[in-house]
């Protein structure tokens, strides 16, 4: 399936994949690009490019950390072609939009000749390049629940250079008014994943620093990074903690600003 092609065409040229047929889905009317809100849910059509997503006022207001992530994917030229759904189905462990989507509770709408099903993003990735999609299925939309309470969120990432680079580590943190802190980590395991602190320990800006470090370590220690061309395992683990602290600070500040 070809949509933005910014990953697929590279893979085709390098011979990493050798399909007998490639189908371009951009002109399928049912898969038309665009965003729509219905029943407390924002639906982002599969062919919606990142530039379009970033400019949408609803996304900017409800999901600002997704905007932060989307606007550092690739380059301007890439974002004018690449789609949000494509970033997910490509299933890179370093996909920048995955951490915010996990934190915001996204799911994907999957269609096939057998019908439509919805898969929570937490269940979608199976490993590098792997998803739960079966033969004959494609993602028709990304679904995001409109936040029911005030949420502060922040995206963070480390790259070797600022533009056109894959993340060495990326993450997103959200803190809700009811005291739940969620982190999603990317590029520190075979797939992006979500971890949660529901005790209220991390959400409290005036909490005990020792206890907070312990609570944070309990979350970051669930990462299992590898060493590769971008960084060593040890460096990734250390930087994950640094980025997590920063994102937590920013998320708490943003929650305060929303509550004022």
């Amino acid at each position, binding site marked *: 399936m*070809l949509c933005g*092609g*910014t990953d697929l*065409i*590279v893979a*085709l*040229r*390098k011979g990493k994949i050798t399909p007998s047929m*490639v189908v*371009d889905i*951009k002109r399928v009317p049912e898969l038309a690009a665009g965003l729509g809100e219905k029943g407390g849910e924002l639906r982002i059509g599969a062919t919606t490019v990142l*530039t379009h997503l970033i400019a949408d006022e609803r996304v900017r207001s409800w999901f600002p950390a997704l905007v932060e992530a989307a606007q550092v994917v*690739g*380059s*301007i*030229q*890439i974002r*004018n*072609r690449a789609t949000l759904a494509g970033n997910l189905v490509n299933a890179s462990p370093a996909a920048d939009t995955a951490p915010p989507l996990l934190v915001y509770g996204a799911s994907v709408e999957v269609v096939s000749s057998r019908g439509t099903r919805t898969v929570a993003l937490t269940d979608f990735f199976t490993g590098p390049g792997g998803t739960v999609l079966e033969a004959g299925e494609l993602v028709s939309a990304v679904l995001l629940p409109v936040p029911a309470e005030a949420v502060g969120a922040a995206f963070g990432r480390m790259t070797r250079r*600022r*533009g*056109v680079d894959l993340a060495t580590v990326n993450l997103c943190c959200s803190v809700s008014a009811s005291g739940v802190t969620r982190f999603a980590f990317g590029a520190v395991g075979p797939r992006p994943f979500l971890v949660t602190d529901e005790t209220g320990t991390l959400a409290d800006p005036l909490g005990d620093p020792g206890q907070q470090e312990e609570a944070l370590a309990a979350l970051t220690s669930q990462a299992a990074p590898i060493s590769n061309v971008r960084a060593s395992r040890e460096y990734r683990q250390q930087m994950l903690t640094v980025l997590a602290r920063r994102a937590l600070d920013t998320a708490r500040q943003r929650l305060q600003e929303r509550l004022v």
Partner: protein
Amino acid sequence: MRVVVNGRELETDVAPHHTLLDVLRDRFGLTGSKECCAEGECGACTVLMDGHAVNSCLVLAVEAEGHAVTTIEGLSDVDGLSHIQDAFLATGGVQCGFCIPGMVMSAHYLLEHNSAPTTTEIREGLSGNLCRCGGYNQICAAVASAAQTRLTR
């Protein structure tokens, strides 16, 4: 495929694996757009598709069917160079020149959306384009100068 290139309707036969860049260069003789990394990292092949800057090495020719494409050849005024190209020459932004068509297309796209960009915004606007000569300072200065020219003309 049928495509409008720099305002002209063109038609040609293509293989499924041909990219838009292949067709522009090898069928239509528009060799201003360059192939360099062929994986969307360097921006040397940047063209506008329906007004949006894209890497033409990552667009299959068949995907461009029915769309309007503008290449570096399409930016030049009838009487010579565009004001952005003039600015690149005046500030010494052009060294070996290989990246420049892509740089000019990205600069054009930036200025279409932001008529008075800051230095940071210019750098961001050109961040999808690499210059192996390292002439970034002069290139950014050229874009700032071109922005001035656009505002005062």
